[in-house]
């Protein structure tokens, strides 16, 4: 019995001494970072796989003729169309000009709508009377389908860039406004009390407590609103334009060129993804003070 105990003890002590010399912390961290990179690669692989399956079956079904490529286009046709646009030119001129025009309308509309949304949202969130008076009108305005305002802007502002910017801005405004308003309302009373005790006046209270606190809400809305700005710009082009990706899509549609429509959509999607990456970078910079989301930390 005692011999077995001794053996057991030996058994137990033997393996402990080996990993007992701890791996250097830096090694451990590097190992975890490698594991994370491997996970990211896996995700990219799976994404490509999904694209291959979807595009492959689309191409296949249109080639066999189960699906009519006249109506639904064809991936290879879309690629060809894009290639022609890039290497030669579009019906409206060089491709990069169309992209630039739409991008300009979108970004300007996005900025105007965001600034107005934040300013008015914070103003109404801070002022009870203004909020009570205007809330009914804002809710009413929010209830109407705002894209039809694009038609109005085309009449009042003309067919140049201003009507597109206005349409994009109005779409962005409401989303940002409601988030900013709500964000201001949700600020912790404790933090406001602390700032006032520390000597903050009304202006400081707004810039140092209310806005930073509401910023998480506002930034969350920016992810959606860039897409909306893009919608606004394209719809604005629908009501009359000579250039832009939206216009490019309509001219393809007039020529029953389904591949052209899809190619235009692809361009819009690429623009939206680009903006999304930019907004995410902005978010990471502005709300660095937030603890990272559960599970996204590197554990060592």
């Amino acid at each position, binding site marked *: 019995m005692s011999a077995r105990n001794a053996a057991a003890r030996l058994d137990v002590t033997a393996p402990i001494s080996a990993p007992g010399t701890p791996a250097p912390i830096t090694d451990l961290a590097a190992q975890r970072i490698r594991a994370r990179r491997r996970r990211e690669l896996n995700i990219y692989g799976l994404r490509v796989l999904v694209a291959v399956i979807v595009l492959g079956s689309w191409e296949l079904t249109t080639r066999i003729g189960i699906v009519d490529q006249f109506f639904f286009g064809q991936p290879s046709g879309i690629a060809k169309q894009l290639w022609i646009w890039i290497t030669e030119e579009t019906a409206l001129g060089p491709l990069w000009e169309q992209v630039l025009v739409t991008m300009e309308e979108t970004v300007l509309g996005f900025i105007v709508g965001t600034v107005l949304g934040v300013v008015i949202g914070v103003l109404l969130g801070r002022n009870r009377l203004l909020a009570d008076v205007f809330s009914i009108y804002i809710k009413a305005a929010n209830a109407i389908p705002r894209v039809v305002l694009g038609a109005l802007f085309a009449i009042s502002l003309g067919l140049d860039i201003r009507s597109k910017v206005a349409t994009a801005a109005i779409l962005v405004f409401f989303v940002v406004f409601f988030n900013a308003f709500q964000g201001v309302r949700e600020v912790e009373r*404790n933090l406001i009390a602390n700032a006032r*005790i520390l*000597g903050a006046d009304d202006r400081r209270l707004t810039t140092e407590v209310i806005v930073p606190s509401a910023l998480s809400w506002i930034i969350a809305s920016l992810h959606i609103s860039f897409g909306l700005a893009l919608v606004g710009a394209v719809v604005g082009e629908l009501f009359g334009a000579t250039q832009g990706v939206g216009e490019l899509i309509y001219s393809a549609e007039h020529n029953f060129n389904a591949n052209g429509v899809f190619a235009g959509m692809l361009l819009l999607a690429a623009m939206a993804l680009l903006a999304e990456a930019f907004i995410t970078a902005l978010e990471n910079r502005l709300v660095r003070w937030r603890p990272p989301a559960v599970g996204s930390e590197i554990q060592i």
Partner: protein
Amino acid sequence: MTPAIDLRGVTKRFLTPSGGVYTALRDLNLTVQAGEFCAVVGPTGCGKSTTLALISGLEPASEGEVEVLGKPVRGIAEQIGYVFQTDAVFPWKTVLDNVAAGPRYHGRPTSEARSTAREWISRVGLSGFEDRYPYQLSGGMRKRVALAQSLINEPRILLMDEPFSALDVQTRSLMENELLSLWANTRASVVFVTHDLEEAIALADRVFVISAGPGTVKANYPVPLTRPRNVTEIRMQPQFSQIYGEIWNDLKDEVLVSYERQKRSGAA
């Protein structure tokens, strides 16, 4: 000499969510002399935090007079520091900028405010953590940030609501001694709320006992222990346990009343 804080016949009522009226404080009289360190003890829910809110001007009294530094309180009183019971440091500011907030709000340039803040950060033992955000600190460290944030304004009135209740015993004694030496240099008038009678006696010149809600001052006891004090050593003195026994006699009844009441309303 005008007292630093003077509450006379103060009553505070709250509207309850069901539309009723709840009287948190009734006919409370409390006077703190300039430079005096006062502790306030009482059972939970008796209105200690409410009393501090009234002194700070964050809440108006329903009835009675609240005077600070000889002037009736209207809105936030000036020259006041308040360490809140719950976390109130700004989560989007680093430790350095949290502590520098007060001087900046008082119009000092940022660089100057920051260099003063560094001194205070080292005084509360947080050197090296200047660039951390609050979520990267422990609860006790956040309390120290809150302490430095209040003290940097060199308030003449300092309100503290259970500032050390989240700390372990050793850190707590350290911080208590630290507070006493910081206070000895500033000679601010302090109102220190705590659940812990020992802490109250070790720190204060005077201990107020508040009765179970509606809160009113049941008695106040001078603490004639000599200064400078060391909070761990002072507990060994025979005079300490004598004072403790006296106050505890008063306090225990209130704690029992409050406990019974909560048990009943919990059961109802």
